């Protein structure tokens, strides 16, 4: 049984209210950056905690796609957190958000929808990839 816990970091600089996008993510375990995480078949992605913040109000969105490998994946929001004003919001989950990798093409990404004008926003998320039962 395998457990890999890692933290991803993403920042964005929206310039206007209503602007939305996808966080480009980095983590010390990964070379370069990435925009989504593909979940191997038989694994679960557990999102244990999120920290969102910035100088502008925004909605942080966790998206899921059953097939993240196609050119235009069908991303669906499965979780949203709203940063109402400049600052930081820490959200720790006693029960994580769990997404299953069934075919091995499933993926998750972190997106934003800006509601507060221009600024710098960020998200950190503690993610576990595991094939354990619970």
């Amino acid at each position, binding site marked *: 049984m*395998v*457990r*890999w816990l*890692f933290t991803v970091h993403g920042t964005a600089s929206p310039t206007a209210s209503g602007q939305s996008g996808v966080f480009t993510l980095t983590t*010390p*375990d*990964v*070379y*370069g950056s*990435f925009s*989504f*995480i*593909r979940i*191997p*078949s038989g*694994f679960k992605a557990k999102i244990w905690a999120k920290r969102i913040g910035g100088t502008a109000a925004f909605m942080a969105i966790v998206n899921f796609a059953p097939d*993240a490998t196609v050119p235009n994946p069908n991303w669906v929001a499965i979780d949203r957190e709203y940063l109402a004003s400049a600052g930081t919001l820490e959200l720790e989950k006693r029960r994580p958000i769990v997404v299953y990798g069934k075919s*091995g093409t499933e*993926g998750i990404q972190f997106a934003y929808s800006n509601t507060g004008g221009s600024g710098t926003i960020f998200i950190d998320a503690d993610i576990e*990839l595991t*094939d354990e039962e619970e």
Partner: protein
Amino acid sequence: MSVVDRFGLVNENSYLVVYFPATGTAIPFRVLARVNKGFEVFNYGPLPITTTTTLSSYDGGTVTPPASGVMPARSYTPDLAFPAISGTPLVNARDTSDIWYLDENDRDRLFHVKMFVYPPIIRTDIRIPINVTQLRFQKERVVIGVSTVLGFTRGALEFIRLPYLRYGLRFGNDTNLNLYTFVSFIYAEYVVEVPRDADVIADILLKRVPSYWFTMPISYQDPGISDALRRVYGFTSTWGFKLYRHDQREQALKEYSSVLASLKS
């Protein structure tokens, strides 16, 4: 007294049985000493892949790592060995391209290695001898391993390194992330002997005497293994000793005595 210690390594004066599924035979070893007792942990470093290593892609074609020690997304390695780390005393190892290699004169030695790969999501398998796929499904109909959907472990692999055989370790990354890697080993360098008494061998293989059984991931009778076992130990016609039922002990003793007569001292 347990046969193994807290690391799962065999204690001194206990027996290690190396079992070959391909032939239904086994070689029992008595562990006389553990050279590195108390110093079993070896933090090796990144996987031995460089920007010139060519990996196969799960999506077709080939891939080269973006940096040394990085497992590219959606790729698996060719057979690898762990070379000596430059600037360390390991450059004096018998074979600097494979630190776990023992040659045919090292019949009194065995390496028992537990390999741990980080991130643990990395797939791994082993091919003995190198480049010979041993993991099969439905007899020899389907070849499996890190390149397929089954026949691999993730993050950890245990092996017993027999002398004169070249092993190939493969690693796979089925995520979409270019992973920085790290490998650590927990190992024992055993000083061993094959028991020379047919009764003792029978007791071990009939499981009347406690021992640690390690099943070699070998399902295909490769001539390279026959050659190695002949050169190193003197097993001329078999890969060790055949397993018998309890009611066949007399037959077993007769055959074991015959096999023992051919072994090198």
